[in-house]
Each structure stands twice: as structure tokens, then as C-alpha cells.
């Protein structure tokens, strides 16, 4: 009854050290409205603390939201956080603020992965929001973060992960995830096909890590000027030479017999393997030889699934069988005397093997 007779016109609280409540920060990052945030806090039992009431909680939430909003501009260029004068925030809290601001929902990242980080995609955020149940505001923040990181490191030389860490002061783990996002966005890998839906963001992030580590220019050459974002052209070109493994009938037979000799009695699906060896080998080598075309690079993952993973899955290979097969499939090439491109082969198969193994699940 009293509140009808007066209304709060203005309400601020400013501490010499900026007061930050991590729980409220999360609610803000999640894109909650003040009203929802207050409700969530009440449900979480905030009223039991310190003899608070709803009014106190509302005031506190509004104030915290405003503080975060004021900090947001700084968080968008994290290097400024440490030498700005407006907010006095202890270093460990600064780290927390930045890290949390750049954290994202993997559900969301999965949706955006491989898409062009442009205005067009931004319009799709509504759909992604309703699909994943993430509040639109939060989607926007995450999308803008992706875009911001992408824009900054796109043109930078040197190792991708380190660049991200240096410019955005993120933890190693988070910087790696961002590297994956940047890498996927740059090469525009196809991830949206129905057949790829079963793969999680972490699956792709792992694959991206492998590709960045072994297939980019920076992977072989540690000179700082090198770029990490693009696959090494020369390497992709060299992959064409692997074709001999399937085109040369002798070599294919020899390869098959070597693998079969190694695996006999060791895997349950031996006969299925024996039957499909040539198809599987052809699939892997063909994928390799086509990677000179940008389009085929984009289709790398869908190709792996359609041409390799699905056949294996329909034959009910276990992950152990698959690992043994790939190990021997890859290593037995070394004993093929006629084959010269051992180094290229290892560089290719190392990545393909770990990607397939990561992607081989339901």
C-alpha cells in the first residue's frame, strides 16, 4: 500500500572496489530480464540471506545488471580491463569477468559452427534461440563474441590459440574452443547436414584442434609469421599423390593383405572388414585427394560420415575394432615399398584417424 504513495526514482550503489555477484553475473550473461532474474534468485533462496526482502533483491539485481552493462564495453576489448581507471576490480575478478563473458553454450556454438559470421546469420539467431532454449539476448552476446574474436585474429599471424589468448586474455581451454570456432567459420566446414546432427560442438572442436595442429602452415613451420587459420595449400596439393594407394591395384591388394594379416583374430568384424576394405580405403584416399577444392574441404566431415563412418556403423564395428583397424591401416603403408609419400600419409592419417575415432559414436 505504501508503494503506491511513493516510487523509487533513482537507486545506485557504487563501491570503491566494484561489487560483483557472480551468480547475478551469470543471470545477466544468460540474458535474463531483471524480473526473471529476481524470480530465479528468490527460487534459489536468496531471501534467506541477510534478512533480505523482494525489494532489496530487486534493487540489488538492477544495480548489478547496470554495473555489468557498464562493464560490457570494456569486456569487449579485454586488454582494456586491466588498465582502465573507472572500475577498481581485483585482478582475479577481472579474469573471472572476462572468462565468463566469453564463455558460450556449446548448444549455441554447435548451431553456428561453420556458418559465416555475418549479419545474415545474426538474423537466424531467433531460430537458434527457440531451438536451443537460449535467451535471444544471450545468443546475441555469444554470436557477437564469435564475430569479434574472428575479426581480430583472422588477419593475425602466428599461432591461433595464442593470438586469441593474447588479445582476449582467455584461459587455454576457452581459447582453444574459440580457435575451433574461428577455424570452422574461416573454412566454412559443413556441419549442418542432418547426418552430422549427432555430432556435438566438442566433437568438432576436437577435430578442429587436430586440423589446426597438423594441417595448417603453422603446424609444420613454427615461424611466427605463419598463419594458423588456413590449411596448408601445399600439403593439400600433395595429398593427390596418395591416390596411388587405391589406383594401383597391386598396392591396394598388398595393403589389404598386410592389414588383414595384422588384424586376423584381433577384431570381431574381421570378415566385414575384409569385405569392405577396398571401399573404405578408397573412401579415405578419395577424400584426401579431393581436398584441393575448397568445396570438398567444406564437405570433409560429411564425407567422413557418409563414406566411412556410416558403413562401419552399419557393420556394427566397435570403437576398439575401428581403432585397431585404423592403426594398422595407417602403419602398414610404411611397409609398402613402392609408396613414397610416407610423410604426407602419416600427416593425413594421423588427423583422420583421431577425427574418425572422435566422431564414431551414436
Amino acid at each position, binding site marked *: 500500500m*505504501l508503494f*503506491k*504513495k*511513493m*516510487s*523509487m*526514482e*533513482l*537507486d*545506485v*550503489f*557504487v*563501491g*570503491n*572496489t*566494484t*561489487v560483483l555477484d557472480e551468480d547475478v553475473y551469470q543471470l545477466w550473461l544468460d540474458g535474463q530480464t531483471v524480473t526473471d532474474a529476481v524470480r530465479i534468485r528468490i527460487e534459489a533462496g536468496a531471501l534467506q*540471506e*541477510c*534478512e*533480505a*526482502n523482494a*525489494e*532489496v*533483491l530487486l*534493487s*540489488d539485481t*538492477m*544495480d548489478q545488471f*547496470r*554495473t555489468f*552493462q*557498464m562493464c560490457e564495453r570494456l569486456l569487449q576489448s579485454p586488454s*582494456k580491463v*586491466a*588498465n*582502465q*581507471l*573507472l*572500475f*577498481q*576490480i*581485483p*585482478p582475479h*575478478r577481472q579474469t573471472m569477468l572476462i572468462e565468463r563473458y566469453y564463455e558460450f553454450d556449446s548448444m549455441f556454438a554447435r548451431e553456428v559452427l561453420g556458418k559465416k559470421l555475418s549479419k545474415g546469420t545474426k538474423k537466424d539467431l531467433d531460430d537458434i534461440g527457440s531451438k536451443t532454449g537460449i535467451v535471444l539476448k544471450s545468443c546475441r552476446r555469444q554470436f557477437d563474441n564469435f564475430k569479434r574474436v574472428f575479426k581480430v585474429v583472422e588477419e593475425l599471424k602466428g599461432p591461433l590459440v595464442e593470438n586469441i589468448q593474447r588479445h582476449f586474455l582467455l584461459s587455454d581451454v576457452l581459447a582453444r574452443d574459440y580457435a575451433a570456432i574461428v577455424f570452422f567459420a574461416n573454412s566454412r566446414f559443413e556441419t549442418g547436414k542432418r547426418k552430422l546432427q549427432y555430432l556435438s560442438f566438442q566433437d568438432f572442436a576436437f577435430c578442429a584442434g587436430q586440423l589446426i595442429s597438423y594441417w595448417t602452415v603453422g603446424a609444420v613451420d613454427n615461424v611466427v609469421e605463419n598463419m594458423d587459420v588456413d590449411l596448408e595449400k601445399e600439403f593439400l596439393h600433395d595429398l593427390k599423390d596418395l591416390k596411388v594407394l587405391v589406383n594401383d591395384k597391386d598396392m591396394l591388394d598388398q595393403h589389404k593383405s598386410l592389414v588383414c594379416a595384422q588384424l586376423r583374430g584381433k577384431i570381431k568384424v574381421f570378415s566385414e572388414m575384409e569385405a569392405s576394405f577396398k571401399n573404405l580405403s578408397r573412401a579415405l584416399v578419395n577424400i584426401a585427394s579431393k581436398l584441393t577444392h575448397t568445396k570438398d574441404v567444406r564437405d570433409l566431415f560429411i564425407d567422413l560420415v557418409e563414406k566411412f563412418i556410416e558403413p562401419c556403423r552399419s557393420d556394427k564395428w566397435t570403437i576398439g575394432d575401428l581403432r585397431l583397424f585404423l592403426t594398422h591401416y595407417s602403419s602398414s603403408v610404411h611397409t609398402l615399398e613402392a609408396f613414397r609419400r610416407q610423410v604426407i600419409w602419416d600427416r593425413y592419417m594421423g588427423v583422420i584417424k583421431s577425427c574418425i575415432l572422435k566422431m564414431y559414436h551414436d
Partner: protein
Amino acid sequence: MPGKLKAKIVAGRHLPVMDRASDLTDAFVEVKFGNTTFKTDVYPKSLNPQWNSEWFKFEVDDEDLQDEPLQITVLDHDTYSANDAIGKVYIDIDPLLCSEAATVISGWLPIYDTIHGIRGEINVLVKVDLFNDLNRFRQSSCGVKFFCTTSIPRCYRAVMVHGFVEELVVNEDPEYQWIDRIRTPRASNEARQRLIFLMSGELQRKIGLKVLEMGGNAVVGYLQCFDLEGETGLVVRAIGTACTLEKISTLPATATHPSNSSPSKDMKEPGFGEEAPGVPLSSGPPTPLRAQTFSSFSPSKSYSRQSSSSDTELSLTPKTGMGSGGSAGKEAGPLKALLRQQTQSALEQREYPFFTLTAFPPGFLLHVGGVVSARSVKLLDRIHNPDEPETRDAWWEEIRQEIKSHAKALGCHAVVGYSESTSICEEVCILSASGTAAILSSRFMQDGSLDTEHRFEEVVPPGCGFCHIPYDELNIPFPAQLTYCYCCRRYKVPDVLFTTIDLPTEANVTGKGCLIQARLCRTKKKAQGEGNATAISNLLPFLEYELHTQLMNKLKLRGMNALFGLRIQISVGETMLLGLASATGVYLTALPSPGGIQVAGKTPSDITYEQHISNMQKKINDTISKNKELHEINPPEVVEEIIGSPIPEPRQRSRLFRSHSESSDEVSELDLSHGKKDAFVLEIDDTDAVEDIHALLTDSPTPAGFYSCNTEIMPGIQNWTSAIQMFTSVRVFRLNANLTNQGLNKIFSDLCENLLKSLYFKLRSMVPCCLCHLNFTVAIPEDELIQVAVTAVAMSFDKEQSLENGKQSGEKTLIKAITENDEQLQFNLELNAETSSPNPLSSPKGLSEVGSHPSARAPSVDYSSFADRCSSWIEQLKLKAHTIRRGSVKTTSSLEKASPLPEGRSRSLRSNRSYSGSSVAVVKMTPLSFIPGAKIIKYLGIINMFFIRETTSLREEGGVSGFLHTFIAEVFAMVRAHVAALGGNAVVSYSMKECVFMENPNKNQAQCLINVSGDAVIFIQESELESTSVQTQSATTHTSNGGEGT
């Protein structure tokens, strides 16, 4: 030509984009002092320009040095149109004018624009070379130290406390000049900011002159205020306490000053403070209300729009000559009464025996009489001649005289904890002054009392002495119940004691204290001019009376018997008056235990009514016992029969706060029949009273783990951790309906309670913690708006040790006190090494200390020790202050040659910081005079800043809250940056003295003015101090910078 100011513009960073086309800025800087302006080159196309300018040199009078700020303007060069201003930095160079304060200003300072707020930062270097000035009639007062702190600053010792200094200057407010109609809001704001900088500089200089005249070298408890009178002008006024301070830099044993052993010291044996009250008192008017409020409104004087009778130099009392006080002292005989008279006469010779101090050196404060206050309502008139602000002076004159006479009526010769304030609404102005009547020891006030020997032998004054009544018990100026002191049983004490000072450290207190507030709203009719003034002055006594009643009731409800730090603020608006009284309640062991509160009904026949009453009584009793438990008040049970009842029972034992002549007899009877304790009777005779009782009970207790007070420290808590959080919270409420007094009261009270609740909730992570120095300011910015601003500090403490704290911490401090000086010394020297500031007051002992480990020191240290030797030698020759200054100039220059980095200290500070990873130094801020767990090793000067912020895009900046939140954060940032640039790492005695907020949401506009002040200091953590003193060298890092957040 007594001074050379040098400034160098190094670089800028985070500048805003001024050229949309290139997304860059072509920045250059104008450096202006007085009428001289220098410019840097344009640094094209960069948001992080590196100007690295030459040294711009200004040759100026020291008078100008004191008055003018250094004004740095950053602009964007534009070939075709006018250059755009990015923002400004005002630098107060006053701290550089005092040899003991800062030596250089160096660091990143925020570039501030009154429309856009902070826009990037600029790195500057500022130094001052002062030359000797032998002119006796000089207008400057360089070298006088200013402190906001209302006690003797921590690394100083009071040699002499000279007394009250005051000054005011007036000017036209640029906002109201005709030119304001044609200039931009930015130009107008900047004119105002600059004017206020100038005026406060001038004010400080004038006060400094008065201090020098009195023979002092410092102003403690410096309180400067602005009165934005609007059309009639702008008044800047300040009060303070002139002192002669001496830096503590010697060991106690060697502290004797050979020249100062004068006979006068003999009569100051320690016991003299405790003698019985005596001394006939002058015939002050008997005060109606006990020891507090008096309001006055004399139509004849205040209405008259001319500057009537009184001259500025009111010659009723002779101007205080330094010598006169001393000579009076020398003739003193051994008789205590005579001594008392002497002190009194020494004080009486002062125009105003007022002290803005709230805490005192041991043995200074002898007895406390009670609160004295005076108010008067004035109509503002145009100030015709700014150079002679006669009317304003006369107004304060009048009020101070009144305060003085009130103090006299209480048998006191001095007023301590004195402060002045105003509240303005349109053309009406309420002037208020308040303080605590007291009797002081003469030892700090007489010439020749400068004997350090005695001070160290000082017996710690007993914890009850100050409670003993100073007035004659047969001639009590108001009805009071006196008993024998519950501590010493020798002297009389009152039943309740109200004061405006901090709780004396030696006071015996039972349990803990708590914040007590009385809140009151009174509606008033809209009126104009004289009618309005009369209406207000008629309301004032009632307001004060009720505030007092509330305070008393709430005090009893908490089972306490004394208030400290009492501050009553009365704010005037067009349709209402607001009163807010805040104080810290405690239970003084020396005073009698307060009786309970008894509810008495008017018509005892009705049964349901009686039931209601007894319910209420029960509630009250429960609250009292709950409160006692909460605050740990369990005084030893006193058997009253032992001392008997020394005082004839006064007839009106119970003072009736709502006295009805018809019912009073009945009530007092009822009361007397109710046991030995004096019950406090609340009579429920009307709905008002019922409301009041409800209001009493609505004050919710502080949540578990929290304590609160508005004084410096909370009795019973000693083991503070170093975690402190200073904060400012502002709320504005709109009242939407026509409300009755009760309705208003309820709203206002809820408002304050909710604000407190919010604060507790916000700071819950610091539990166990105490909110100290909770300073509430209320204002009525517009009709139907109430603004409440709070500044305080939350300090965590260790619960574990709080049980055993009593003795242990006492011992600890004792040990510390002994070792203190030694450590202090060490740091002075090391500091010198870094700052290249010689310490003219260091002693021969200091020299030997240096001599004992010369090898351990870096070469640069030799210079400083040389400086030390030099200056202390000079000191021994008893040369005057200015000669020492000359010496300091010499040494500075020699140091400059020696070190390639001219800005030794702050440079090295910054390099230390960079090691710790963060590029911005942590600056702690606190409204208290100390930092827990740390030792203040140097005062760098006063911080006194005034900012205006205006916006024409209120919605875009997040509405009023967003706007004000940003502004307050910006003000904090600027204070921190300026302190860091002075080489400091904390601000103590910080206060936000003004926060005037105006909005016009329809026009999407808002404006806010903020004035803050404090003392910039360097502190070091005590833990570090211990370790560094062992290692002597190397650790001069002052590392407290790197520490955890404030």
C-alpha cells in the same frame, strides 16, 4: 617571483574517436595556468598519442600557486573548423607546495568532460620549485598543511592546538550569469568548475594565512562546504582547527626539546583533569530541552536585506594573540580551580573556542557537557560585493556566538566536534551549527606548553573522566538526574550523554554500539519570502524536539545510555521539512543503566484497551532485552544501595515527552511505583503516540554478522582485517500522493530502513563486518522528491579473536607504540631516499641511525641522509620555516642532478606495479582516519574535487540511475587517479560533501554536482612493515599497492 611550476605532457591513451572518417584522433594538449597557455604539437591519427613534450614552465607568485589549478585541455585538431575539446584535467598543485607532502604529480589522470564523462587518460608530470620569500606581508600561506581528518593525523604529534579558523568567499554563480543564456552547457559547467577550484584555492590560502598568524603550521579537521544559493551567488566556506604539528620521527627517550622547558609545564600534572566540577558559570540562558537544540529566528535581523550592524571583524572579543594565552598561563598558581579558570580565560580570549576535532590527544578532553546546537533561518539576498561577504559572515557570527553562549550555560569553555551546515530551498536558507560543549586541558593550548617530556609520561586518563559533569550540580541548566559515576564513584555523571564527537579511545564501554537514527518529516504550506521563513522557523523547534524524543526512545529501547557522533540534519523543501538525526549509541559503563520504557494509557477503564497497552509493553520489553543481548550489554549489576541516592530525587523524575498537564501526575506516580529503575514513560494519548511506538518497533535489528555505527570505530571490535569497502549509495524517491505527517514519517523511515537493508545485503560477503562512519545526507531536490545519500565503509573483522581481543590487543598496541617510532624513523629515511623530499623535522637520533648502517644503503640514499642532516641541523639552529624551505630547495636540486629520473618516487612505484601484473595501482578509500592493519607513513596533501556532469541524452545513458552510477564511479576513478599520481595508495577521511542531482526527464536531461574531499596518504601494511624493518633496505616497495582490492 617565488615559484616555478613545471609541467610535462607525456602521453595519452584510450582517447575517443573524434574523426569519424578515419576512426582516429589528431590530439594536442593545452596547458594553462593563470593567464599563460602552452600547447603541445598535434599527434596525428592516434588514440594513444605520445607527445613527450618539453617542460612547460610557469613563473608565478605563490599566491597564484595556491589559488589556481593547473588546467590541462586535450583537443582534437581540425584543419578546417574549430578544434574540438575532448576533455579537461584540473590539477590542484597545493600538495606540491608543502615540503612534507608530495614532491611530484605523475601518472595517468582521466580526461574529463562535463557532457561525456571520462574520455581517455593523459599522462602528465608536474613539479614546483619554490623560492624563498621573505616578504612579511605576503598573501600566500604555502607550507601550511591541511587535513580533512578530524583528529591529529597519525604520523604527527600535536605540539599545540591553536583553535578555530574560518573563512568564506562568495562569488556570482556562473550558471546564473546573463552570459549563461548564450553559452553552451559545457562552457557553463566548465566556468563553474573552474570558479569553484579557484574559490577553494583562495579560501585555503586565506585560512592558511590565519593559521600562520596564530603561529600554527597546519589545519586539522578542515571542512569546506559550498552553498549553491542560486541567483544570489555561490558561497564557499570552510572551518578548521589550527594546530602546530610535529612529525613523529624520534624515539620517545630522546624527544626532549632543550629550549622548551618552561615553568609552565609544572602545573600540568596529569591529575588536574579529574577535579570536581567547580567554577561558577556564566549566566547562560537556561535551556529548555537539555543539552541540545536551540533554534533561532530573529526577524529583525534576518529579514533586513541590508548588511546591517555587525562588521566582519566582530570586535566583541579581542583577537586571539598567541602571546596572551601563554602569559596568562605563567602566572598560574597551584590551585586547580585557578588552573581551570586559566584555561578558561585562555579559551575565552579566543573569539570562538571551537574545535572541529572529534578525537583528541590523550588528556586533552577533560569533561563533556552535551550537545549544543543553533539554527537560524535566513532569506537569501544578492551578494553585492563579493570581496566583502559581510552578510554571510555576520550570519555565521551570530550562530557561533549562540553556540558559545550555550556552551557556557553548560559550564563549558569550549566546543568540540564542531561543524556547520546549510540547507537551501529557493530563497530560504537554514544555517545550522552544532558541537559538543566540553572542558579541555590547557596543555595543548598555551604557549610554552611544548614539552614533549611530559607527554610521554602521560598517565592514561581514566575511562570515565570525560563523563563527569562540567556544570555545577546545584545550578543545572536543565532538569537532569545525576548520580555518582559508576566507575570511580567520586564524581557526578548525568543519566544520558549526547555528543557530536567520536567515542574517546579510553572510554569504558559495556558491549557494542549501534547506529541510531531519528527520522522525521513535517509538511508545511507553500509560501514565499518572509512568511515562508517564519513558517519554517516556527516548525524547527518542534522538529528538533521530536527528533530528540525519538533518539531518546530508541536509545532506551537498545538499553544504551550515550550517543556519539550525533549529527542532526534538517532539510528544507517547498512543502516539507525533513529531519534526520544519526548517532552511535553505546552503553557507557560510567553512566547509570537506562530504565526501560513504560507505556501508559490514558483511559485505564477500558479492558481491551489495557490489554492492547500491555501487549505493547510486552513487545517493548522484549525488544529491549533482545537488543541488550544483540549488543552484548550486560553491565555488572550495581547494588544501588551502596552509594545510596546521592542526589535528592528531582520532582519530575520522568520527563514526559507528550505531557498532558492533567495526566502528568498520574503518570509520574505510576512510574515511581514501578521499582527503582527510572522507567521512561510513553503515554498513549492519541493516535500519534501509537504511531510513534509502532515506529519505534519497526527499526529492524542489523542482520547477523553485521554491526553499524556512524563513528570512526565500533567499541568492542578491534581485530579488523585489511578488507575494507568504501561505498556511496544514493536513492531518490518520489512521493505520489498528498500525505499526512504520519504517512510521510512512515515513508521516510521505511526509506532509510530499506536502504540500510540493501546495504547489508550488498555487503553480505564481508560478514562478519561493521559499517563504520555511516553518513546519511538527506535533501529535497524538488517538490515531492526525497534524496538520501549514504557514504560509509564496510570493514571485515576476525570473529575468532574477538573474544580475547580485550587485553591482547591492548598489549599489542602498547608494544607497537614503543617500537613504532623506531620503525617510523626507518621508513622516513627510506622514503626520503625515494621521494627526494628532505624531512626538515628529523632529529639527531635519526642521524645516528643513518650513520649506523651507511654501507647497507644505495648511493642515492646518501643524498637523502645528507638532506636529513642538513635540515635537522638547520632545525637545531632554530631557523624559521622559510629558511628550511630554502634548504629543501637546495637539496631537491642537488638530488635532481644526481638521479637521472627526476620523478623518483612515483616512477619506482609504477615499475613495482608492473611487476605485479596489474597496470593500475589499487587506491583504497575510506571515510575513516585510518586503514585497518596498516600504518600511514605519509600525508600527501588534501584532495578537494568538484565535478559537474550533465547529459542531454538521459535515456541513452541508462536513465537517472545509469547516469548517476556512471558519474559516481567516475568521481571515484578521478580521486584514485589523482592520489596515485601524488604517489599515494589511499584516501582517508574521505567524504562526499555535496551531491546535487537535478533531472528533467521530459527533456531527457539531467545534471549532477559532486564535491568530495579527503587526505591522500601512503600507507604500508603492518605485516610488511615488520618484515621491512628487519631487512632495512630493499623493501621500500610500499607494496600495499599490489594488494587485494580495497
